[in-house]
């Protein structure tokens, strides 16, 4: 692509202003000082000083290459640059889907931030997060709490935590959720016009712009949600070293990056855990689980 001819768009997501040659309608527009550029170009064949050589990806402290065959290769470096090398006839929507999840998260890691696999809502100007593994219902619970109690949404899948002057802060991500059909049904949403995140991938993209809060918040509570095997929802506060160990498991793409950013993560996690309370919720899979979960979480928030 001719660089001089390329149109650029400017966005804000995860507390970062981004200039991009690829259109990302899921992100919010921005006019602030650019900290990150996303452009088309040539991706290096390999990294010279790689620390991890994974399946179609390589990582060093400041660089990351990943190849999504047959769509595109991505190069992320120094926490401020993403280069995309599309394959012939690549679908731009596919490229964008990979860009706004795993690829941009590697940039967040490079910037010394802590991306958690968590959704989030804003409660009285503070952030309440829901950390969980894929499929447990992070997006669904955040959307349900928004619809039932009016809490603005701050993140769907990835929530970024940082520390400013030794105090933890949470940055909102972007106003778009990825939902399975059953979540759409549980939430009573209409999926008639919702697009799939990619062709032949049966997950919908849901724009939640009207319910979204964009900004920086102080963290208040973190709920770690897991599937349990009991009839009722169980909730218990996590304390001490368990809090650290449980949250560490929810660092986004932790398996991919191994311990490369362990020092940065440790610093932020330590600050975060001094300030927030953390609860583990074991949910069941009965049909009323979403309603019970929302009520349980709302009761805990109100008591706090």
């Amino acid at each position, binding site marked *: 692509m001719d660089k001089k001819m390329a149109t650029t768009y400017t966005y804000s997501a995860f507390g970062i202003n981004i200039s991009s040659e690829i259109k990302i309608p899921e992100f919010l527009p921005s006019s602030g000082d650019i900290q990150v550029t996303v452009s088309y170009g040539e991706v290096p064949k390999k990294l010279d000083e790689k620390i991890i050589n994974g399946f179609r990806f390589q990582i060093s402290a400041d660089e990351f290459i990943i190849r999504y065959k047959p769509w595109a290769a991505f190069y992320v470096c120094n926490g401020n640059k993403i280069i995309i090398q599309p394959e012939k006839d690549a679908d731009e929507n596919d490229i964008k889907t990979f860009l706004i999840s795993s690829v941009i998260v590697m940039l967040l890691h490079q910037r010394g931030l802590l991306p958690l696999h968590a959704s989030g809502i804003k409660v009285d100007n503070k952030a309440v997060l829901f950390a969980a593994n*894929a499929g447990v219902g992070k997006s669904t619970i955040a959307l349900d709490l928004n619809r039932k109690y009016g809490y603005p949404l701050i993140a769907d899948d990835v929530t970024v935590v940082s520390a400013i002057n030794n105090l933890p802060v949470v940055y909102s991500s972007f106003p778009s959720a990825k939902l399975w059909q059953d979540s759409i049904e549980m939430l009573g949403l209409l999926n008639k016009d919702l697009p799939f995140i990619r062709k032949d991938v049966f997950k919908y993209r849901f724009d939640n712009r009207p319910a979204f809060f964009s900004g920086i918040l102080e963290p208040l509570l973190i709920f770690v949600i897991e599937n349990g095997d009991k009839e009722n929802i169980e909730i218990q506060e996590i304390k001490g070293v368990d809090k650290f160990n449980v949250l560490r498991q929810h660092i986004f793409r932790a398996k991919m990056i191994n311990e490369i950013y362990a020092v940065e993560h440790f610093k932020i996690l330590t600050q975060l855990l001094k300030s927030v309370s953390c609860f583990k919720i074991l949910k069941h899979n009965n049909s009323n689980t979403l309603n019970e979960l929302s009520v349980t979480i709302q009761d805990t928030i109100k008591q706090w």
Partner: protein
Amino acid sequence: MKKNIVWLASYPKSGNTWCRVFLANYLSKSDEPVNINHLNIGAIFSSRQIIEDNTGFDISELTADECDELRSFAFEKWAENYDENAFVKTHDAFVTLPSGENMFPVRKTKAAVYFIRNPLDVAVSFANHLGTDPEKAAEKMCENKFCLAASKKKYNQQIRQRLLSWSGHVQSWTTQNNFPVLVVRYENILENSEREFQSILQFLNIPYNSENFIKALKYSNFENMKKAEQETGFKEKSPACKTFFKVGKSGYYKNILSENLIQKIINEHFACMKKYHYLSNSGELII
């Protein structure tokens, strides 16, 4: 290069889980029966978590074909955690990727145990598994491109599994030459589980210990597995069926399948049924 992956392969409902329960108990150091929900014996080849953990990819963003491309790498890496036999259960047929590359990590594979069962009984049990009637189950067993698809509606712990037809499945595993395969008939385990499980241990060069063996035979007895499921449920049970361990008999199809359906299944799978002694040389049903 360490070759330690052992495939426990079968079309569904053919004795695979039975053998896994036996092996889990045999290899366990405990005197108590191994919990059927925590068999702790290797992995399942369609496990989303193992693929994600060992590649770093979020596979909910990938198509079923793209997921298949990750499986070989993921399971090679996963198997590095094991010194000896890394058991992997699979219902996938032994197929290659559209690119022609192996979907299975053959260069790290030690061997496979392939479980085969009379397709007439499979049709009955598979119908229960799918929550459908035997006619529909039999139809699926005849589809050359049949897949156990991951749900399109909700998150699923398992990814799509390509089964092919019943005959296609059997042939894919038993005629490949990448690694040794021991074929074990379900009916032979029913008839003499001691002999069959011993032959599996021998084939895999697993040292024999009579105390462990007796204990494992007892704990993997069909009635005991059925009782365990009644008490604790079984997480590998399909949501569509009520119980996983249901009948566990040979020839049970005679009470369920119509003559027409029996003939249809025989016609479709004649060669394979004959080869594995479910039909005599003259084409008569043996079981």
